[in-house]
Each structure stands twice: as structure tokens, then as C-alpha cells.
């Protein structure tokens, strides 16, 4: 894409896309930090994630301000318009990812008090890895303007859903085995649910990024597999 006749227009768009990258990086580090803190019962790390959320919120407000000022000043069109509006929406999803990571971090203290079964932390860890790859991937692919990779990444969310279902079942088993596990397992279940939701926000970001890059919407239906509803009834 060539440069605008008005150079400061390019600068302003650049600042917005830099904020998206920053928020994406921060979201990645919050997700990895919160799960690490959870698995290692690391309260200090959890505290850092909680305080990072304030930075995330501030970035989002700055992005909103810049985007709205740019629309008012430049009346962007076509790909520029899509980039600005898409950024506002992506920032909303990134901010939510930050909130969910913070929520995981806040549970670290409570879960840490009880004994967590080894196997369990293993499967939550595996789920967190999948989520982290998605969070980091979506920001990278958007920066690289790779629409095909974004479409693929969006479908990858299915793997998180499958993982979530299996974590859910495992937790249920532990709770049935020993009611003393219930408190910790319930917290872990919320953590797993938060990770699953982070995955959903990543798919939103991928869809928005795809639209920004191509001007086309991805098809509405995406493979979905959340069998926890069935598991409960069984």
C-alpha cells in the first residue's frame, strides 16, 4: 500500500496499528503469566498480571481516542476505514482477553491453598499453550497481513473447545473422587472457561482482521465443539 499524500495520516494510522500490536503482545504475556502463576502457585506473578490489566485498559482508551480523532479529522475510506473501525473492535476483544487473564490471576491465591492434582495442572497447561499460540498468532498474522492464515487460525479454535471439554470432564471426575477437591476444582473450572473464552475473543479478532485485510466477511458458521452441555446431562 502506497503512502498517503498527507504524511501525518500515515503516522496516525501507524500509531493505531502499533497500539494493536502492543495490546496483542500484552494480552499474550498476560495469558502466559496468569496460567504460569496458576500452575506454579506464583502469587507475585499473578499480582503482576492483575496490574498489567490497568495498562491494557489505558491502551484501549488511547486507541479509542486516536481512532475517533482520526475518523473526525481524515474521514478515512475503504481499507483505511476498515483498518480504523476494525482496530476499535479488535482492541475491545484484546481488552476482554486482558480481563479474563486477570480473572485467572486473581484465582491463583485460592487455588494454591489446596492441593492440585498433578495430572490436572498438566491438562490445563496444555490448554493454556493452545490458547497462547492463538493469541500470539492472531496478532502476528494481522501484522503480516496474511488473510489466509487468519482464516485458518480462526478454525483452530475448535482444538481449544475440544480441550476444554476434556478438562471439564477431568475436573468432574476429581470432584466426584474427593469432595475436598471441589473448591479448587471449581476455581480451575472457571480458569478453564476463561481460557476457552479467550479463544473465542481470538476468533473475533481473526474475523475482524480478515475483514480489515480483504473487505470480505468470513462465513458465519465455524466448526464448534463444546460438549460440556452433553457431559453434564450424561
Amino acid at each position, binding site marked *: *500500500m*502506497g*503512502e*498517503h*499524500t*498527507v504524511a501525518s*495520516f500515515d503516522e496516525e494510522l501507524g500509531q493505531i496499528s502499533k497500539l494493536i500490536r502492543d495490546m496483542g503482545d500484552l494480552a499474550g504475556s498476560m495469558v502466559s503469566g496468569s496460567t504460569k502463576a496458576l500452575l506454579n502457585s506464583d502469587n507475585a506473578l499473578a499480582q503482576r498480571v492483575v496490574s498489567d490489566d490497568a495498562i491494557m485498559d489505558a491502551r484501549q482508551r488511547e486507541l479509542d481516542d486516536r481512532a475517533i480523532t482520526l475518523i473526525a479529522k*481524515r*474521514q*478515512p*475510506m*475503504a*481499507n*483505511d*476505514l*476498515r483498518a480504523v473501525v476494525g482496530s476499535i473492535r479488535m482492541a475491545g476483544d484484546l481488552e476482554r482477553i486482558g480481563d479474563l487473564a486477570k480473572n485467572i490471576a486473581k484465582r491463583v491465591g485460592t487455588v494454591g491453598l489446596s492441593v492440585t492434582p498433578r495430572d490436572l495442572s498438566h491438562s490445563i497447561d496444555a490448554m493454556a499453550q493452545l490458547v497462547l499460540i492463538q493469541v500470539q498468532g492472531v496478532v502476528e498474522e494481522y501484522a503480516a497481513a496474511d488473510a489466509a492464515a487468519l482464516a485458518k487460525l480462526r478454525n483452530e479454535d475448535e482444538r481449544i473447545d475440544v480441550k476444554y471439554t476434556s478438562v471439564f470432564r477431568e475436573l468432574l471426575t476429581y470432584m466426584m473422587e474427593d469432595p475436598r477437591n471441589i473448591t479448587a476444582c471449581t476455581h480451575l473450572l472457571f480458569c478453564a472457561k476463561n481460557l476457552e473464552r479467550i479463544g473465542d475473543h481470538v476468533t473475533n479478532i481473526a474475523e475482524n482482521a480478515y475483514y480489515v485485510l480483504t*473487505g*470480505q466477511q468470513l462465513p458465519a458458521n465455524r466448526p464448534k465443539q463444546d460438549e460440556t452441555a452433553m457431559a453434564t446431562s450424561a
Partner: protein
Amino acid sequence: MNIMTEQSLENAVGDKMNAKSNEVIKMRGDKVGVFYGEKQALFDVNLDVRQNQVTALIGPSGCGKSTFLRCLNRMNDTIDSARVTGKITLDEDDIYDKNIDVVELRARVGMVFQKPNPFPKSIYENVAYGPRIHGLAKRKSDMDQIVESSLKKAAIWNEVKDRLQEPGTGLSGGQQQRLCIARAIAVSPEVILMDEPCSALDPIATARVEELIDELRQNYTIVIVTHSMQQAARVSQRTAMFHLGYLVEEGATDKMFTNPDDKRTQDYITGRFG
């Protein structure tokens, strides 16, 4: 308030009629080329103008959009060195045919210019001039009727009804432009060509004219040349992008301004050249 109801009634009827006529081709340019002397200004332009729609012509200065607009009612005839090739039809009739009466053509395809140019006569006479030379009114009462309804359609009646005998040049710029639109409407044209009709107007007068364009669309077919991308996006249903004398891209306005196909269109509307 009466005017509003009358107008909305007209619009409602117009809407029903438009449902079917949306895709009717009112004017069609077929391989239109224009030469000014040796220099070719327009190359092989194929463009359809749809009935009851606003077609916006956009592109950087010197791209040929005004040249094309002026072909549609043979305004280029007034330039000695200009030569038009290809074919332009109005309701399937070739407007460059030898048997076409140019005066009658320009009554059917009216024009509003960049700078408001009322005649140095009264407001009444500005509007009555066209119908008079075309013999559209037999009696004074008929003429009064035409003047009133034209000024109403141009949304300026309320502002001038008590001063019809005052000179048209005494009105504000925005009022003058609406007076010129009333003058164009007075001869009951089928197509109205507008060459940057708002470029000399302030934002409020511009908004009034844009609102008017939207209302006029119910009864007329409009082709507008504009340098304001936002205006093209706001008022038109179809947009045609010109560059260096060629038609680059034509399509639904909504798509042109959110996701154009051609890179030159994209670069122009996003402010990357021009």
C-alpha cells in the same frame, strides 16, 4: 408543512414506481471518446446511468469526469475543437444523431453548474425563462404554477415566495444554487447533470442541496460530478471512478467506498494520490 406532506406523498408514490425502474438504463455511454483538437481527453468509456438513481463521477482533476458529464447533454458542442466519438443514448435514442434537436435534448437533460449562475433577472423570471422559450405555459396562471412547483421541488419556495420579483442574484450562494436547480427542474427534465454543485457552498447549504438531491431522485435521474468523496458516498447509489481519461471502475457506491476492486480507486479515495 403542507409542502412536506405533498413531497412525502410524491416520494411514496415514487418509491413504488422505483422498485421496478431501479435497473432501467436511462442513459448509456458506449465507447465514448472525446478529443480536444489533437488531444484525446476521454477513452472508450462504457457507462450506464440508471433511472431514478444518483450516479457520482469521481476522480482527480483532469481525469475526464466533467468531460463525460458534458457529453451527456452535448455541452461539448459549444467548444469548437471538441469532437466526440462512440455513442451516447437517452432512452435508446442516439443523442448525437443528426435529427436530434439540441435545445430539446438540453430540456430533457438539464444541467446545474459549479458556481451558481442565476440570470440577472428576478427570481420568478429565472425559473420562468426555460418554460417560456419551450412554450410550456400558455397562460400566466400556468406559468405561476410551474414557477411555484419548481421552487417547491428545489426546496427554496418558503424562502423566496414573498420576494419573487427581487433579483435572483440577491440571494445567498446556497439559495442561488437551489434557484438554479429550480430553473433546471422547470422544464421538466428527465435527467439532471450536476457539475460540482456544492463546491462553492458552505456546509449547511451543501447539506440542503444534498438533501434535495435525494428527494429529486424520486422523479429524476441524476448524474453528479464531485470532488468530495464524502459527498459522493452520501448522495449516490452508483459511483464511477475516472483516471487519465479512462473509466477505471463503476459499481454500487456502498462497495466502492468500503471495498473497491481497483487499486487506483482505492488509492484515490483513501487519499494516496490526486
